[in-house]
């Protein structure tokens, strides 16, 4: 069947710009069903922009984005969310004055879902992150950084996504907490078959987690391969794993 063959997300020749500054200069990328794909690269390489452009804002200037065979290039963000693509933005961005329960509820609001679905999603999120369960009536702003990241991922999961996009989930977290987050992503992928795109600066962790990886430099994808392949490549080790970039 073609449905199984077509990638869940396919990006062809994608270009995007902020004013006159071109952030994406022709990106080709594919994510197949059930894969964890990571996107690594230095600051300002365009990783977050790529993720946001897939989500419809900023709009693509050229190229094509297909989700499950449907063209979503020009679609508005709320239409894209309704196709059950979820993202957890950079810097977590939970709602600080709303309770944990309300934050999670917000994640479910953007897509049409009934109470049964919501209860099931909530149950899944709380199984994955039991710490949130104790914090349900606390305000989001009072959580620790790691808990906020769990909440941000949990909030994205509430819409029962088919593709989950995470922007730097380990940003600013202690190594132990970061590992918990990556473990949770692995569990989601293994047990629920969830397809995940992870944008990361922490290349070591990300490449170990991912089935495949893409390396971005200055708005272009320069390398791609399986996680293990990329980890083994000397230029990757030099640029992203062992400190300073060798020019």
């Amino acid at each position, binding site marked *: 069947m073609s449905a199984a063959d077509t990638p869940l997300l396919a990006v062809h020749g994608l270009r995007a710009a902020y004013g006159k500054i071109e952030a994406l200069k022709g990106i080709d990328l594919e994510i197949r069903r059930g894969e964890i794909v990571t996107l690594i690269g230095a600051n300002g390489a365009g990783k977050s922009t790529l993720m946001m452009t897939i*989500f419809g*804002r900023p709009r693509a200037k050229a190229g094509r984005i297909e989700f499950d065979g449907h063209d979503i290039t020009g679609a*508005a*963000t*709320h239409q*894209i*969310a*309704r196709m059950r693509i*979820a*993202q*957890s*933005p950079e810097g977590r*961005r*939970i*709602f*600080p*004055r*709303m*309770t944990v*329960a*309300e934050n999670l*509820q*917000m*994640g479910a*609001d*953007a*897509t049409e879902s009934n109470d049964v679905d919501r*209860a099931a999603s*909530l*149950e899944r999120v*709380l*199984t*994955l*992150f*039991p*710490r949130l*369960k104790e914090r*349900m*009536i606390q305000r989001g702003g009072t959580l620790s950084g790691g808990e906020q990241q769990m909440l941000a991922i949990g*909030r*994205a999961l509430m*819409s029962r996504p088919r593709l989950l996009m995470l922007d730097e989930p380990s940003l600013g977290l202690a190594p132990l907490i970061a590992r*918990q987050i990556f473990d949770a992503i692995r*569990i989601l992928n293994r047990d629920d078959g969830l397809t995940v795109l992870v944008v990361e600066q922490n290349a070591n962790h990300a490449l170990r987690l991912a089935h495949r990886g893409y390396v971005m430099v200055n708005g272009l994808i320069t390398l791609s391969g399986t996680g293990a392949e990329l980890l083994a490549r000397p230029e990757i080790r030099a640029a992203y794993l062992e400190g300073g970039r060798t020019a």
Partner: protein
Amino acid sequence: MTAPSSQLPATHSSGIAFILKKAFISACVALILFSLMIGIRTLPNESGQLTYVTRFPQLAAMVAIVFGGSIVVELLRLWWGPVDTARVIPPSIQSALDFGGRLIAPALLIFALLVPVIFYQQRYILDLAILVLTYVMLGWGLNVVVGLAGLLDLGYVAFYAVGAYSYALLATNFGLGFWECLPLAGLLAACWGVMLGFPVLRLRGDYLAIVTLAFGEIIRLVIVNWQDLTGGPNGISGIPRPTFFGIPLVPGDNGFAAKLGIPFSPTHRIVFLFYLILALALLTNWVTIRLRRLPIGRAWEALREDEVACRALGINITTTKLSAFAIGAMFGGFAGAFFATRQGFISPESFTFQESALVLAIVVLGGMGSQLGVALSAFAMIGGFELFRGFDQYRMLVFGIAMVLLMVWRPRGLIGHRAPTVFLEHNRAIAADLVKEGRG
């Protein structure tokens, strides 16, 4: 206990030096400002030339007042503790406070219902109560836009004006009654809310405030200048009074009093107006409370918290913002229609920027998003205005000082606490089941 007490004197002594320094700086600023404003006064002499007299004692007095006042304010701050510090309150007192807090709203509601009974003979108090309730309603309406959705609107009075003129024009030109016009006034105001909403979709904060301010002025200026329709600065008079669902509140055989078989009294109409605005205000409150628990209300609050996150969750920002503007405007329109029927006469003078600022101050001081806080602050502000009517020129001064003090001690407004909208009764049951199989 010993550790804090040994620390206290140290912080106090450094505090005194700090307070004196701050007071001295304030006094210097006051000296510079007041030296020309108060220290020198220009007068024409007999031959018509301008001369000046110096008033150094008054200047010295003003500077001394600023110096002393600054010390008092700083000391008060020291005693009350810095903003946002947790104060240790015994649990018994805390629970009593919580209990009292829960009783405030029902107690106020019962009191409001009984006001016409208690003050039946005092027309002045009834009029004042109607005025307060009008502002409570405006505050609750604006609260949707500013308090919940976080969209700073400085032109709210425009919708009040649209509502008032809608009723006045429809009633005087087409002979429509109040109850037919009320929904129309709300609808028209909501349309204007959407019209304002569209161009400002991308604006936030200061920029949004400026545009809404301009919008308020545009509406007012159109009303002033479109003489054929609105009567311009002369306003519209002879606006029909409200009827008790078709029965006019007038003396005579057809009047409300005659139908009930009781003697006519002009107070009947006042009492009716009171209950009318009370019902409208409660409607506003009820709708807002219901909306807060629906996805749209949650989306408004989320929008106030973080617009980027809302986008990331796929919330439709356009409809969320427009609906906030439209619903806030609709309540403003209702209040406007009420205002027109109560006054019987409207003119552009009633819809100046000062009204917008007053309503905004009510919302901000009450605690953005808090329904009870807005009601309390409307009561305090409008009631307070009346209380200080005798002082006339000092009214604004007292008002300003009260605002500054409130913002120093309660930066989130009178009631800064935000009640959650998602409750966990059935979720708790799920959570309990999960404890056994929980990972991590």
